[in-house]
């Protein structure tokens, strides 16, 4: 009984968070409500006993991505300044139609995919699959190559970001005393 109530609460938090993220005029408020959405999502994952993914959700999304967006907002003063121009959406009608269609295209296959849970043993099996140790073993044995390629990709992206940020010329530009 209480799993269902917990589910509804968490789902409500997630949806409200997402809605505020879109509607809020003040961008910083938007980002914080986005973080609320991530927290709600992490709660849902916990409900599904997928601890590792819940942890990664908080660590990566709420912790890192949230702060990165805040940094981005902070550094571009045009967005947060008093006279920040307002992004007015014009084609809102067509926008909603496209969004709805994309949503349906994604959602339908996943709905068919859900395994009809009829025998409890099956769920026990699934739960054991998703513990951290099991995931660790799976990552190392069958998928070790994909892991390495991903690592390379990420470091390349990191180095690219650093050089782009520094604008290419060497360390701190010296401020001359005029």
């Amino acid at each position, binding site marked *: 009984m209480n799993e269902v109530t917990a589910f509804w609460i968490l789902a409500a938090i997630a949806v409200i968070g997402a809605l505020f993220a879109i509607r809020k005029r003040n961008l910083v408020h938007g980002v914080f409500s986005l973080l609320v959405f991530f927290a709600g999502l992490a709660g849902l994952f916990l409900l599904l006993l997928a601890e590792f993914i819940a942890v990664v959700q908080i660590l990566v999304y709420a912790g*890192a991505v949230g702060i990165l967006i805040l940094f981005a907002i902070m550094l571009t003063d045009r967005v947060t300044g008093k006279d920040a121009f307002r992004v007015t959406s014009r084609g809102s009608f067509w926008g909603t139609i496209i969004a709805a269609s994309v949503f349906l295209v994604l959602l339908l296959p996943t709905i068919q995919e859900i395994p009809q849970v009829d025998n409890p043993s099956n769920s026990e099996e699934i739960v054991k699959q998703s513990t951290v140790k099991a995931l660790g073993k799976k990552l190392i044995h069958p998928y070790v190559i994909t892991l390495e390629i991903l690592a390379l990709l990420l470091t390349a992206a990191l180095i690219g970001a650093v050089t782009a940020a520094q604008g290419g010329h060497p360390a701190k530009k010296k401020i001359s005393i005029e």
Partner: protein
Amino acid sequence: MNWELIKDILLATVPLLVIFPTMFALTTWVERKALARIQNRIGPNKVGVPMSRYGGKLSLFGLGQPAADGIKMLFKENIVPTGADRLFHLLAPILSLIPAMLVLCFLPLNFPWLTDEQNSVKAFMLDGAVIFFFAITGLNTLAVFMAGWASRNKYSLLGGMRAIAQMVSYEIPLVLSAVVVVMTVGSLNAGEIAKSQDGWNWFVFSPWGLAAFIIFFIASLAETNRSPFDLPEAESEIIAGYFTEYSGFKFALFFLGEYIAMFAISGLAVTLFLGAGDGPGAEAYPSLKVIWFLAKICVLIGIMIWLRGTLPRLRVDQLMSFAWKFLMPLSILNIFITGFAWHAENNNEEYGFTIKAIIWTASLLILYLTAKGLDKVNRANIKPRTYQYGE
């Protein structure tokens, strides 16, 4: 509603909510007294029960000070600067307290009054307890930024930006030094890590464990903005950093949040490196485990206070270069050394002690030399200078 689960959870969490805030009150008193003693003065002893009949006053050696601070904080008017973001100005201290409190319950404090089964209440003895710990302490950075941003004052903004930069860059050495322990134990569950260190083979006694502990301790100082790294609240440069505009109870909440975060992280350090709850009498009377655990936390807090009384503050760019150019390479090297040592030890069991001695000295040497080398590279021209004497 199954009351059984709720009873278990309450039994596990309520003691936390009682023990740690009282320890917070005591630590503020201990900190002020210890700092005073370091600086050759007496420390707070004025708060006491005024016994007007005898004219004097019963001074309880300053123990009344935390209570007095608490009451003072309650009655202070809390000011919200104009133009500040009222909602976030209020939310920031709460958000800084939630992760600190949440993280407390992952510590393997096996309370004596809980049966063994209840101790590992499903909700807390997670499989990935250690990662959960780091994920939630990451949220603390958000609270600091929210405070800095919401108070609309250039000092707190500067403080907030510094805090984010510091916390993000010190989280990596923190996590990497914890990886060493997780690797050797083979599980992320705090309970298992604690069990594997029973009987005095704490991790801090092995060279890579010691190096990891030192890196972990330094990084935890930075994570909770303590002593050499208290840049976000640097009095001399930016008045009080991100909580300049806070007064009254919101300031007290920040204060409480910082101290509970300090307990939580030193609790994790004790679990990972100092054999949580393991001490001379631990096997005989299991109830001693909690006492040992809290005692070790107090020792770590004592060292933090001692550091606060001695060391000056680092500058922002030195803080960054220390984390990225010194701690991180060292902790990565430490992971490699642990790997090799673990394999070397396990593969040739037959040589027994000699291999163990060789490995330990070799790893100690490598770690120390790389640390010296890194330090020389980072601070090439920084050394004490000599002076001439003119007639």
